[in-house]
């Protein structure tokens, strides 16, 4: 199914650093206010996603960075379950794994832990992890706490647009677009500095 939140996740953990780093770079363009959709409209969509228990699949990611003439591509596989969180395995061009849980994130490479962000060190990373998992789990309330939500479509094909409401997040992320039908199928992260990341998800099995 989908994998939007990982994108979110890392970029938010980044945004913790961002407190220092990023703010300067990005003048957030004014966003057109997304038409707000009531919880009553959104919840069926999210419930629809969350109906599936464990989801596995493959993904392709295209990253468009400013000052680069072509996209940077990578691919890999993922597994999500409500119990054990999200496993995001990049296979090309290098091999690295990210495990996202409600407690934070751990990144490994070649079996070695290279990054750990937990509540004590990086509370924002935990927030990000929770947002990420909330998308998978269809947790409308968690999402609404951080974003203004807008949705259209029906359960066969729908689009959900998340615009950050808190300033710290808005300094990093301009907008996140999540697409899906029975499963999540795509994710577009537009960063405030003009970079963007598109992830296509192809779920191969669900239990």
């Amino acid at each position, binding site marked *: 199914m989908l994998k939007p939140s990982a994108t979110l996740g890392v970029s938010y953990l980044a945004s913790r650093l961002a*407190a220092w780093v990023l703010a300067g*770079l990005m003048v957030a363009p004014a966003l057109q206010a997304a038409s707000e959709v009531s919880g009553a409209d959104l919840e069926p969509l999210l419930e629809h996603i969350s109906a599936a228990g464990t989801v596995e699949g493959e993904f392709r990611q295209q990253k468009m960075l400013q000052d680069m003439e072509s996209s940077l591509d990578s691919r890999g596989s993922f597994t999500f379950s409500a119990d054990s969180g999200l496993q995001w395995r990049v296979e090309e061009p*290098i091999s690295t794994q990210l495990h996202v849980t409600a407690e934070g994130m751990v990144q490994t490479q070649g079996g070695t832990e290279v990054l750990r962000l937990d509540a004590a*060190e990086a509370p924002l990373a935990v927030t990000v992890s929770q947002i990420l998992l909330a998308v998978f789990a269809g947790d409308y309330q968690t999402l609404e706490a951080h974003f203004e939500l807008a949705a259209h479509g029906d359960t066969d094909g729908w689009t959900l647009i998340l615009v950050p409401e808190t300033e710290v997040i808005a300094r990093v992320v301009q907008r996140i677009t999540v697409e899906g039908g029975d499963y999540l199928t795509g994710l577009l992260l537009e*960063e405030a500095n003009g970079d963007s990341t598109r*992830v296509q998800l192809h779920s191969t099995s669900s239990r």
Partner: protein
Amino acid sequence: MFNDVRGRRSAVVWALLLGACVVFLTMRFSEGRVFDTSILALLPDSQHDPVAELATITVQDRFASQALFLVGSPKGSKTDPGPIADEFAGQLRASGAFSGVTTELDPEVQSRLADLYRPYRYQLLTAEVRRHLSVGDPKPLVDEALRQIVSPGGSPRAVSLPEDPLNLLGHWLRNLQPRGGIQATGSGLVVESDDYRYRVVMAAFDGSPFGMDRQQAVLAAVARASAVLDSTGGEIVLLRSGVVFHAAAGAEQAKSEISTIGAGSLLAIALLLLWHFRAVASLVLPLVSIGTGMLLALAVSLAFFGQIHIVTLAFGAGLVGVSIDYSLHYLCYRRQFGGNALTEILPGIALGLMSSVLAYAAQAFTPFPGLQQMALFSATGLVGAWVTVVLWFPLVGARSTPASQATPLGQGLRRLAQARTLLAAVLGVLVLLAAIGLPQLRFHDDLRALSSSPPDLLAQEEKVRALSRASGGAQFLLVQGQEAQQVLEAEEAVRQELDGLVADGHLESYQAISQFIPSVRRQQHNLELVQTQLASGDVLPEFFALLGASSTTAQRSQARIQAQPRGWLAPDAAEAAPVHELVPHLWLGQVDDNTVASVISLGAMGAASVPEQLAGIAAGQSGVRYIDRAAEISGLLTGYRETVTQWLLLAYGIVVLLLACRYRGSTWRVVGPALAATLMTFGLLALFGQVMNLFNLLAALLILGVGLDMGIFSRESRHRSHAWEAITLSAITSALAFGLLALSDTPVLHHFGITVLPGIFLTWFLAFVAGSGSLATENTTTEVLIRGSRKA
């Protein structure tokens, strides 16, 4: 001595002068900022070193004018502390007591910081990045850069990929962020304990936390804002930290104790005087004398020093005990004999005043501002009280007739004098006990022993400190050099050793300007390293190839690094302003014509040996000094105490010389009781385990003042009963006025009181046992006869 006309004219002049004092004080009090409460204000400026002084002030101002609040709820609870914290912060802002209230990082400063560093990104390397590059192993850096790109999201970059392929700027900026403690999140600043999560509210105010006006404004604002917590049913807790709260608590306590203890003792003195003299005039006259003394002392001290310290005021409260003596002698003499009492007692009280004033004047020449203030206050207070007795008292009730009956006090004293043998035995035991105690006398000059913060406030402070991992600012390294680059290079050398302490867990953290702006030498070295490793060779081409980017991108990136213009970031450049805004206490800059200085602030220390290690590190690097303000102040208190001891001895010396002119061989009878009583007091206090400090010694100066009066008057009056009545009343009033401070919870006041109380009692006891022989046999008739014969 004074004829009526001259006397009246002088009395009027005195009244006019006091009127001027009232006008001045009224104006001064309406301006505010009359009282100072910082113990530090009593001490001389640190070590006669203007640079260290400036550094201390800069660092302390940074911490002293801030308050930190944690608004928290238990981790399991459904209540989010966020909205409450925001409302609390909003109320603080609206109060106007604070110049700034924040609940999140200021994005403006951060963005300006990123702008500042961007052009210099190839020459700003963290220790870790430099290590990888200098050993020619950039692979960990390449891997990390790749991971960030292929991981979903990845860190947003401060500059584009070709402009900074290995994200050197990202490493640099991330490294500047403090670790642990307070964290920035999407919803604001947070900090967590094991069982609570807190939102952080930081507030800064203008002005000194020791100014009472500022304290009151801050406390009132916090009290009003705390009301927002009331609606939460006790689930939300508020922790506060800041010098201002401790200063306010200390000042409040001292103030309320001076007023309650002061009012209590004044009432007791009033009852005592009424009981003894049985006339309202005898109550009013001493009060007028004391009051005018205080009036003059306050006015002169304020005019001279600008502000009065609360400890001076406490010391001044003791002055009541000394300054009332002149009135008492006047009244006791008049009660017994009537007539012109002044003429009879004038030699005695003039000598008493002169010796006391000289003793206090000696203090004024010490280099300690606190002592100078107390000396001026005491001397002018005594002069004021004395002048009132001399100029005003003869105008009132001069025609009163001698009392025919002996007073209950006089009878009591006579009976007591008849039991002198027993008293002498008691005294002997006391002397013995004191002699045993005296060798055990110990001094402890720790500043913390003088802090009177309530335990609850201290507990909050400690908790907030531990959670936020903030440093108190009392310890730091001072780095000096002839120019900025020398200072930065010295910092970089010393930081290597500090890093060792941090790695060992001995030091929580440190902050130095060279972490934000490296020396030019290091920037040059870094740039060479980056150009050697990355501008040519395979590292970047392979990196871009892995990402599927074209080889021209790699070439462009390498050419960009090679062509980096040579220009260096410097702390004194105008562009460095964002750094100084962020860490304003680190860079002192040009402090005089040939000195540039900076401060390395230090976090919490993990072991008692760390200060010593730090001092050792500083000693090993020229231009670097370890400054420990707390230890320094304790050292100053020690110096202060030693100075007071010397001046105490000198004061006794002056007094002995002066009195020897009049009393010759029997001078010791006059000075002896005060001196012996002081030694006995110290011995007895030591015996009971009391540890002494500066303030016990200051009390010894008061014992000298009161004790001398006793000695002089008993001598001058040839130990007649009116004199013993006056002396006894004086001892009791002194004990009441000042000794009651022993009950105080403010350490400074407590130490004063606990010394003065036994000191004055023992002085009286000694003088009485030694000099009351004639009292036992004296009666009123012989007294009148003697008086008659002297007149003739």
